[in-house]
């Protein structure tokens, strides 16, 4: 009975959504020109990024520069999630020795493959977040790729341990550098996260002023945090 009721509810919601979306034609050009009475933000970003920010990837410029506060908030959410998970699964010092990672025994194929793939994956991830301003990608994407490499190692090898001390240091330093870059903008230019775009020429690695630096810090932070979360979630005290 409950199932029927829910199916009807879902059908109603589905109809409601389709009806709404129907009025938003697919592929229609909503950017318009920036001369009109109601200029859209997208038009402004597309026309002005090259001159004003000297960054090739418009999305990176949006994420790091125009809407930098959102990115800061997002980095904060990740950090708070890590802190929250650490406090939810809090173990006192005595219990630390009892926990172990529950690993199924892995075959030789997996073990060898993981060892070969891990540095390649890490390298790819680092490449992605260093080139975030030139190619699709950036801090979050690259950090996630690196963390995936770590995940591969974590589930293939029971004995693979990440050094929590180093990870905590990298995380804190990366986060602090993001904010300190912003504060420097606040002191020198009177706006938080102000950029100095004149450095370098377009499409080279050294373009866009502070944007690549911020993204690199974000990349490290995300990689370390995701690995930390995975590590905590994988360690379970076996129910005796």
């Amino acid at each position: 009975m409950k199932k029927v009721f829910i199916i009807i509810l879902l059908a109603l919601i589905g109809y409601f959504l389709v009806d709404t979306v129907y009025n938003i034609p697919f592929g229609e050009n909503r950017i318009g020109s920036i001369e009109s009475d109601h200029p859209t933000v997208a038009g402004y970003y597309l026309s002005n990024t090259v001159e004003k920010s000297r960054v090739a990837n418009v999305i990176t410029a949006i994420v790091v520069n125009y809407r930098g506060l959102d990115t800061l908030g997002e980095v904060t959410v990740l950090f708070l999630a890590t802190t929250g998970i650490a406090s939810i699964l809090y173990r006192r010092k005595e219990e630390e020795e009892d926990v172990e990672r529950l690993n199924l025994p892995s075959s030789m194929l997996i073990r060898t493959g993981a060892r070969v793939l891990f540095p390649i994956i890490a390298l790819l991830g680092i490449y992605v977040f260093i080139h975030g301003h030139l190619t699709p990608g950036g801090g979050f994407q690259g950090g996630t790729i690196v963390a995936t490499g770590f995940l591969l190692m974590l589930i293939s090898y029971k004995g693979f341990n990440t050094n929590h001390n180093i990870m905590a240091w990298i995380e804190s330093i990366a986060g602090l550098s993001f904010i300190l870059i912003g504060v420097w903008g606040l002191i020198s230019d009177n706006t938080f996260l102000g950029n100095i775009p004149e450095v370098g020429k377009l499409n080279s690695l050294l373009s866009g002023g502070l944007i690549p630096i911020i993204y690199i810090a974000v990349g490290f932070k995300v990689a370390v945090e995701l690995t930390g979360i995975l590590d905590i979630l994988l360690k379970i005290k076996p129910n005796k």
Partner: protein
Amino acid sequence: MMQEEFNEIFVKYHEIITLGVYGTSIALMLIGLYAVLMKKNLVKIVIGLSIIDAGIHLLFVGIGYIRGGTAPIFSPGYENAANRMVDPVPQALVLTAIVIGFAVTSVALSLIIRLYKHHNTAKIDQIKSLKW
């Protein structure tokens, strides 16, 4: 050039492509909602929430598409393509939303671990000890 061919295909199959993008995202949202409401296993409920998020993100990015547009990156050779690029703002917003959705999912999973440790089960009907 690739763009013209793609434009032709787009015009001919406009309905299907629209259906594909919008329909998939709405279907994902409904599937996720179904999982959240109907499933008994806690992990499946969290996966359902994650699927709802995926549907919304897909809808967002799909709506940002502009016919005949290219990726909003000014690589060499595309310097003057500013007026035929897709909308970059939804992509930037979805980037943030994906990470936030991930954070929420990971916190939910850690809570499930703790609930499992206490109750030795992951089924929601056996865990409801807090009532109105």
